[in-house]
């Protein structure tokens, strides 16, 4: 199969939290329609990579290109407008907003996002609780809301940070179904996940991170052959 051109390209990305140098030359490619998963231990730099791509980590060096356009010089609010949708690890549901207000908070950045009806059909729980305060939802519902929130905007690449963290197996399964639905709709997904048993059900390719850089990258077909290495690298 001929490879699609990379939609998102990261080259030699360094990043800092204050004085602390946490990303040491990250390289990665995400192609149109792909689901790519970043694996790695706690502190390997997965979340930092997403935050640096998004522009939430402001002190960064290197190259981040979306369809060839350089994102590193952009102010934070323009990154989303370039077509990135971010679902943070802590979910970031706003307590002073209702569920519906949380859902419609991010402005549309492009045509082709899902309509509210489609979103409510995909997440019936959110529809039922739309007038509740955002943070009154259960952890699983908050995660669904955090994902639903960026589907309306027309973002073509979703950056998902550990969407299954701390959730019951049945909710994890539900999130897997949602991600496969989004994938079928042609969305491109960059996923950070510790749980590679979950990730293998949705991902096309994997990167393994350690000490702020990539130490390996492979397709889903090669996953079984790498189990020993993954157990070693992820400490599971």
């Amino acid at each position: 199969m001929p490879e699609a051109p990379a939609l998102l390209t990261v080259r030699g990305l360094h990043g800092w939290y204050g004085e602390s140098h946490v990303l040491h030359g990250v390289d990665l490619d995400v192609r149109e329609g792909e689901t790519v998963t970043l694996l790695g231990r706690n502190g390997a730099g997965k979340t930092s990579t997403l935050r640096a791509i998004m522009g939430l980590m402001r002190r960064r060096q290197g190259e981040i290109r979306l369809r060839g356009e350089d994102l590193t010089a952009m102010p934070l609010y323009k990154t989303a407008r370039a077509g990135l949708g971010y679902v943070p690890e802590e979910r970031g549901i706003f307590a002073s907003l209702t569920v519906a207000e949380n859902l419609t908070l991010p402005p549309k950045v492009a045509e082709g996002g899902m309509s509210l009806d489609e979103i409510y059909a995909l997440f019936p729980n959110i529809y039922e609780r739309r007038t509740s305060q955002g943070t009154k939802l259960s952890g699983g519902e908050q995660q669904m809301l955090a994902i639903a929130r960026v589907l309306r905007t027309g973002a073509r690449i979703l950056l998902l940070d550990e969407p299954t963290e701390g959730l019951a197996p049945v909710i994890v399964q539900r999130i897997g179904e949602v991600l496969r639905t989004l994938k079928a709709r042609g969305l491109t997904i960059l996923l950070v996940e510790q749980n590679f048993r979950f990730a293998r059900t949705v991902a096309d390719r994997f990167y393994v991170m350690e000490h702020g850089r990539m130490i390996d990258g492979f397709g889903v077909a090669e996953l079984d052959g790498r189990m020993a290495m993954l157990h070693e690298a992820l400490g599971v």
Partner: protein
Amino acid sequence: MTMIFGVALPALLGQLLLGLINGSFYAMLSLGLAVIFGLLRVINFAHGAQYMLGAFAAFLLLERTGIGYWAALLVAPLIVGVVAVVIERTMLRRLYGLDPLYGLLLTFGIALVLEGLFREWYGTSGKPYAAPPELVGATNLGFMVLPIYRGWVVAASLVVCIATWLLIEKTRLGTYLRAATENAALVESFGVNVPMLLTLTYGLGAALAALAGVLAAPIQQVSPLMGSNLIIVVFAVVVVGGMGSIMGAIVTGYTLGIFEGLTKVFYPEASNIVIFVIMALVLLVRPAGLFGRGA
């Protein structure tokens, strides 16, 4: 004559009205402070000076250009709002993310400079500013005589407070503002121009203070120190209401104004300190304020 707790009814109602008028200013001023603190995390010590600027803008508009009270209600807040936008863009902006003390010091310095300049130019004695002819006089309500201008101030401040509350609770801009108050970086990462939102918020807060200043001009003398006399009480109101709480600022503003008025009737000696006593008690029991969410 009707007596309530040994006090003549007209005297009681008169002080109640006076309290309500003071409360109207407390509410309008603490509302702006609360909005600014909520989003920018800046304790805006220039708020009193911006209130004073509003009154002076009205005075100068009339004196120099003949623009009267009604137009000044719009133009003066606009002028002060623009000045505030320039302050935010050129100075305040550099202090975000630092200790809130820096913002406090900067705005305190700005207040001192502005007050100093106006004292130099106009002296401390205060300038008279007449109420518009439509609002001169008094009307007899049967149980008390109501000066029309004072009734207007209470009504206007209620409209301003309700309109601001609606703007924050019921509009798209208000949703951005509430969300950014919780987590500005995340809201910006969704594509909302948060730096612009910060600028607008500071400008709006200052414009509210200026509007209060125009409303106050016919009641008080227009004086360079009118803001600094008031702002300390307003800070106490914001602390009682809960830093950053919009509803808290409005409700506490009116309530404490009325409390102060009633204290003047029943125990006049305490009327200057009653708000601070209430502040101390509230801080002991609910450090985050009556409407605050807690730190």
